[in-house]
């Protein structure tokens, strides 16, 4: 497993307009775990240029959907902010720079509350 620094940023790429609000804030939905994996897929973006970050989102997220989708934006959050909620980061590096937010509680309402906290701390960047 790859070590992650608490001060490094993570990006959750957005492919649905409903995942953010007109006031520039992020909805909790974007951080909820996938029911398939029980994890939230993110990418580690430290040291990357804006263009390089968007390229990861395009290639590894938007274009891998069936059918391919267009990238709408991303929600950035720091590792320490994720850890503060009791969740963990598993940097599997598959594909390169990929990580999962793990250790979600099983209760739906508890998941939702944590996702709301993450959304409140995240910064939205639109493409």
């Amino acid at each position, binding site marked *: 497993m790859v070590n992650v620094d608490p001060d490094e940023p993570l990006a959750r790429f957005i492919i649905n307009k409903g995942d953010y609000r007109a006031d520039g804030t992020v909805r909790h939905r974007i951080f909820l775990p*996938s029911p398939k994996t029980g994890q939230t897929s993110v990418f580690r973006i430290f040291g990357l240029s804006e263009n390089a970050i968007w390229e990861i989102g395009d290639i590894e997220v938007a274009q891998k959907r069936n059918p391919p*989708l267009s990238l709408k934006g991303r929600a950035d959050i720091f590792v320490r902010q994720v850890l503060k909620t009791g969740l963990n980061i598993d940097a599997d590096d598959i594909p390169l720079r990929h990580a999962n937010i793990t250790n979600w509680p099983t209760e739906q309402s508890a998941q939702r509350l944590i996702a709301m906290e993450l959304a*409140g701390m995240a910064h939205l960047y639109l493409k």
Partner: protein
Amino acid sequence: MNIVSQSRYSPGIYRNSEFSKKAFWQSTASIGRPIEEAIESLIELYRQCSEADWDGYGANPVSKESIYEAVEFIYMLPSGFPMPNILAEPSGEIAFEWYKSKRMIFVIGFNGKNMISYAGIFGSNKTHGTEYFSDTIPPVILENLRRLNS
């Protein structure tokens, strides 16, 4: 028969029938505009999210049963409470979001199994839980909505 009586008192009547916009509007002649808009949103959401992976991240499909519960809740919501923002969650639940700011937000979810899961952030206070939902809105849900709008 209008959808109010169907949804509040005999949901089985329309739960067994085809779920369609036409069926809804044949029975919603006298409801108010905000309720109309909320139901339109639910129908559209079902159209967009009734197949697996609708979010591109492996989401479960939204079920008809969760839509029905959401409709019932809309009709039960006392006047004076604002209509929620409506969205689907990856679990397949229908979520109602009442948002004032990042630190003043309340969200509930319907899973189609007569349960409402809820979570709220009210400044530095937080809450979450699950309540049985059938004929009335659980008091804790109304209390949290009042808390948000007080």
